[in-house]
C-alpha cells in the first residue's frame, strides 16, 4: 500500500500551479451583485406604478452590466402543457440553490417544476414527467396535458437524492426504475405506478431501460474491461468494453446501442471515438459500428437515449472542452447510417434532462 501512497503523491505533484484567489472573489462579487440586483428588481416589481417611479427617482436600480440573471419561470400549470423538450437546473447565479428544476416545452414555454431536490426526468415522448415530491416523499409522475398525477407506491426520504441516483422512465412514464448509490439505503427499485407495485432489483446492477407494462428491463454491470448487459428474463451477455453509455432497448426488444470508445495508446484513458455500436442485447453478438456524422467537430457523442423511430435514437453530443460556450446538443441519430440530425441545444451547462436519455 505504500507504493499506492507514494505514487498518488507523485501524481499529485503534477497538479498545475494556480492562483485562483482573484478569480474566486470576482466570481463571488458577480454572484452578489446579481443577487442584490434581483432583490432590487423584485422590490421594484412589487410596488405599484407611481410608487415604483418615486422609488426609482430616489434610488435608481443600478444597471446590470454583468451576465443577465435567469428569467423567472411561471409555475407549471395544472394541465394543458405541451410535451417537454428538455429540463434543466438554471445555472448558479443569484440564489440558484432554491431555483429548482425547469422544463422547456416543445412549444418554447418554460415552467418551474414543483420539485426542489432530486431528479426530474421525462418520458421519451416528453408527455409525462417524473419528479421527487418532498411533500409526498415519493416520486410522482405527471401527465402534462391532462394534469393527471400518479404517486409511486414507494416512500423515499429526500436523502435518497442527496447522493448519486438514477431515474429511468418507461416510454409511457408509468413504470420506472429508481436507483441510488452512496447513501445508506442504495435503492434499486422497479416501480409501476399504474399497477401500484414495487419490485426490488438485483443490487449492483445499473438501470439502462425499462419498457411499459411487463416489458423488458435492461440492466448493466461494468467490470474492468467488460460490461455485462442483462435483459431480465434472459441470460446476461458480456460486451468487450467498460461502459455505462447505452441507448434504451430498441422497439424490436433486442437492439441496444452504445457509444463507441477506445483506449488511447498515448493517453491511457477511455476516449469516445465518435462512433456508435449497435448489438444484440440478448446474444451480445451482431455488433455493427458506424461513425456518427452531422455533428460539429467540437462536439462528440456522449449519451444515448430513447428510440425516435425504428432506426433512430436520441443522442446527446457534448463539447470536448468544458470551457466551450456550447455545452451539449441533442440529436436524433440513425443507428444504421450514423447520420445525425439536430434536435435542440441543451440550455444548461449543469444539470439537465432530455426525454428518455440514459445517463
Amino acid at each position, binding site marked *: 500500500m505504500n507504493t499506492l501512497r507514494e505514487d*498518488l503523491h507523485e501524481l499529485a505533484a503534477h*497538479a*498545475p500551479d494556480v492562483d485562483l*484567489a482573484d478569480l474566486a472573489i470576482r466570481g463571488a462579487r458577480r454572484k452578489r451583485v446579481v443577487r442584490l440586483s434581483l432583490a432590487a428588481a423584485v422590490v421594484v416589481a412589487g410596488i405599484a406604478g407611481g410608487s415604483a417611479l418615486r422609488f426609482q427617482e430616489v434610488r435608481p436600480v443600478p444597471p446590470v452590466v454583468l451576465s443577465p440573471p435567469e428569467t423567472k419561470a411561471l409555475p407549471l400549470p395544472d394541465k394543458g402543457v405541451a410535451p417537454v423538450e428538455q429540463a434543466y437546473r438554471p445555472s448558479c447565479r443569484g440564489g440558484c440553490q432554491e431555483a429548482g428544476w425547469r422544463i422547456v416545452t416543445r412549444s418554447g414555454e418554460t415552467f418551474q417544476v414543483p420539485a426542489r431536490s432530486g431528479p426530474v426526468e421525462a418520458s421519451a415522448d416528453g408527455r409525462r414527467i417524473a419528479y421527487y415530491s418532498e411533500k409526498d416523499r415519493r416520486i410522482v409522475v405527471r401527465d402534462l396535458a391532462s394534469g393527471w398525477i400518479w404517486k409511486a407506491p414507494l416512500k423515499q426520504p429526500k436523502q435518497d437524492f442527496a447522493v448519486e441516483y438514477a431515474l429511468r422512465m418507461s416510454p409511457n412514464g408509468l413504470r420506472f426504475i429508481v436507483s441510488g448509490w452512496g447513501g445508506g439505503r442504495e435503492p434499486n427499485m422497479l416501480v409501476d405506478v399504474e399497477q401500484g407495485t414495487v419490485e426490488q432489483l438485483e443490487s449492483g446492477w445499473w438501470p439502462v431501460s425499462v419498457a411499459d407494462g411487463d416489458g423488458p428491463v435492461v440492466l448493466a454491470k461494468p467490470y474492468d474491461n467488460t460490461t455485462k448487459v442483462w435483459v431480465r428474463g434472459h441470460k446476461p451477455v458480456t460486451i468487450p468494453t467498460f461502459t455505462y453509455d447505452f441507448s434504451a432497448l430498441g422497439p424490436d426488444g433486442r437492439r441496444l446501442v452504445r457509444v463507441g470508445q477506445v483506449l488511447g495508446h498515448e493517453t*491511457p*484513458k477511455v476516449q469516445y471515438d465518435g462512433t456508435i455500436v449497435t448489438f444484440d442485447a440478448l446474444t451480445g453478438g451482431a455488433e455493427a459500428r458506424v461513425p456518427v456524422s452531422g455533428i460539429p467537430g467540437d462536439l462528440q457523442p456522449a449519451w444515448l437515449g430513447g428510440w425516435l423511430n425504428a432506426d433512430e435514437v436520441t443522442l446527446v453530443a*457534448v463539447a470536448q472542452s468544458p470551457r466551450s460556450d456550447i455545452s451539449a446538443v441533442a440529436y436524433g441519430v440513425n443507428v444504421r447510417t450514423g447520420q445525425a440530425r439536430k434536435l435542440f441545444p441543451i440550455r444548461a451547462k449543469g444539470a439537465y434532462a432530455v426525454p428518455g436519455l440514459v445517463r
Partner: protein
Amino acid sequence: MDRYEGFHEFVRARQQSLMRTAYLLTGDTHLAEDLLQTVLTRVASHWAKLAKGGNPEAYARKALVNQNISWRRRRRVELPGAALPEVGQSHDEATVRRLALLHALAQLTPRQRTVIVLRYYEDRTEHETAQLMGTSLGTVKSQTNYALSKLRALTPQEVDR
C-alpha cells in the same frame, strides 16, 4: 471593512494543497482548475461567516469532494491533453507504474476514486472520509474494498506491494 479580508491569505496558503487533491479527484488539469475555482468562489461567497468562526479549509475540502462527485458524468468525457505531464525521465519502471495507476483511477467510479484519494493520499480515517463524503462508514468500507479490488486487477504492483 473588506468583505473578503483574509481570503487571499487563506487561498495563498491552501490552494496548492487543494489543487493537488482536485487533480487526483478529476485526473485532468483543466477540470481540476475548474473544480477548485468553483469551490473557492463558493468559499468566497460565504467568507464573512467562515472567517468569523467557521473552518474554511474543512468547508472547501468537503465542497471539493461533493462538487466533484456531482460532476461525475462530465468528467467521464476525457479531454485532449489529459495525459500525465512529463515527469522528466521517460518509461522507467516508476513512470510506467504511475501511468497505469492514472489509467486505473480513471476506471473507478467517482466515489471509489474519492475514497482512494482521501484514504491513501490524504491519509484520512474511514470516519473522516465518511464525514467528508456525507456517506456512511459502511459505504466507505465497501467502496474502498471495491476500489482496491479494481486497482489490484488493473495495477497489481500498486496494491500488492
